[in-house]
């Protein structure tokens, strides 16, 4: 039996597999299919100070080995999240990772105060959403504003650890990672989606109504592995790795690159049981390869 427990920013996860924000809603739908307690944690849909309608449809396009999406942070607002969703998720034996997105530093501070008071286990600071005009990625592509957003959340989070979610749409991700770490981030998560675009050549219209969207799925896995490896070599805080994970071997790859835990997202759309399957495959990988504790995989890559 492999010891599947891992620790992320001081939070013990029963296993390293969590689901990625935006792919799992608040868990209601997938709870009809499996026990959410099978997951190490749940990064819930990103929440904002006020309710948001999001972008007009179409919001999704398929790509070679992936998808583009531009949902635009549709959510019921932080108060509804705290009042209705946190109590629902508390019924399961899994960690709740809130994902918050502000337009201003004041909004990040307020969101942090509210979700930490609601009793979430970890706060993921979204400074990397490519699909909203204000805020979002604007905070995540500049080291100073990434640090400022992280600091605003950290100061208002009480004892709840803070994890900053990094955008891959930058020249040097390690620069943003160091800035977030020095502003007090207890962990970092990466990668958010890569900005992309597809055009219907018959109509000459972009397939997505927002014109551009975020690329995810197996196509981005090598980018995620490279960025996790670079960031792991640049900071001391633990990492939640994500980007195109669809199998236990993919999860092992991200852990070897330096992640302490791994999120599954887009793979859920092809296989609603993907997160549970990835966890089982990872466990089998450990058993087959004589790995006694899954945490031994973190950073275990032997670079040339």
């Amino acid at each position, binding site marked *: 039996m492999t010891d599947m427990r891992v620790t992320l920013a001081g939070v013990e996860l029963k296993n390293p597999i969590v689901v990625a924000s*935006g*792919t*799992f*809603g608040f868990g*209601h*739908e*997938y709870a*009809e*299919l499996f026990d959410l307690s099978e997951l190490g944690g749940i990064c819930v*849909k990103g929440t904002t100070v006020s309710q948001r*309608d*999001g*972008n*007009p*449809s*179409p*919001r*999704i*396009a*398929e*790509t070679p*080995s*992936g*998808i583009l*999406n531009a*949902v635009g942070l*549709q959510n019921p607002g932080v108060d509804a999240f705290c009042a209705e969703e946190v109590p629902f998720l508390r019924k399961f034996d899994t960690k709740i990772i809130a994902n918050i997105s502000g337009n201003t530093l004041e909004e990040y501070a307020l969101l942090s105060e509210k979700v930490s008071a609601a009793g979430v286990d970890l706060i993921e600071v979204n400074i990397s959403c490519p699909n909203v005009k204000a805020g979002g990625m604007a905070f995540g592509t500049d080291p100073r504003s990434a640090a400022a957003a992280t600091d605003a959340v950290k100061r208002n989070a009480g004892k709840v650890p803070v994890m900053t979610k990094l955008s891959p749409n930058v020249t040097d991700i390690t620069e943003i990672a160091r800035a977030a770490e020095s502003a007090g981030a207890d962990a970092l998560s990466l990668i958010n989606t890569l900005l992309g675009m597809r055009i219907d050549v018959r109509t000459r219209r972009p*397939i997505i109504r927002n014109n551009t969207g975020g690329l995810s*799925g*197996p196509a981005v896995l090598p980018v995620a592995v490279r960025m996790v490896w670079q960031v792991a070599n640049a900071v001391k805080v633990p990492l939640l790795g994500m980007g195109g994970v669809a199998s236990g071997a993919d999860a092992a790859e991200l852990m070897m690159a330096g992640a302490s835990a791994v999120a599954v997202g*887009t793979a*859920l*759309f*092809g*296989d*609603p*049981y993907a997160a549970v399957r990835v966890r089982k495959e990872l466990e089998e990988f450990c058993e087959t390869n004589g790995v006694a504790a899954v945490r031994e995989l973190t950073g275990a890559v032997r670079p040339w």
Partner: protein
Amino acid sequence: MNVYKCTLLSNTRLTESSHDLRVLAPEMKDARPGQFVHVKCEGFTLRRPISVCDFDGEILRLVVDRRGAGTDWLTSRAPMTVLDILGPLGRGFSADGNILVVGGGIGTPPLIYAAKSAASADAIVGFRTASAAMLLGDFSEVCGTVQIATDDGTLGAHGRVDTLLEKRLAEHKYDRVLACGPAPMLRACVRVCAGAGVPLEVSLEERMGCGVGACLVCAVKLKDGNGGTYMGRVCKDGPVFRAEEVCFDD
């Protein structure tokens, strides 16, 4: 709702671009008219949502339009292929009482199961041209009267289904109209049914992701009944909506 491995029993071509698939799926015992299933296509990240054309408790009938590489894969499967199907999904039609079904093109298949489930049904179906017409024999079996319109006049009435609908509603009484087809056809149905004072349910189409309501990509603007609007999910809150719920202005 769950993921099932279902054996493809037959695959026949209906028109130039559509295929009629029969799948052994006794597990889908709760499938209702207007619901859909989400079918895995090998090598693709996303499943393909296909409406339930008919279901007899064992055999699930799916009519699939070839629109791209994913549905090309699906419509070229040989019998005995095992398909990975998630379903049944979504909210279907109120298929009871005396109904009129109105369909356009690839929107016609789910109306077969709806008409069959109702106490009595008539149908108005529209197609681009005679060679694109499908399921006419099936509609004749489950409906009292079947009226046909084509855009080019090569079959049935020359013109659109809403002209036939307007006339039909002036002469006959129905508990409800159920419609599925392209957005302009649905908008015309909304106008005609509102004018005639007949309740209407519409089945909407949108590009989908998860199919279960979690990812929020298949958003549709809905009226909340108090003068406001909110974003609903075609896959979970629909694909069938009462016409008065939907904001058709976009």
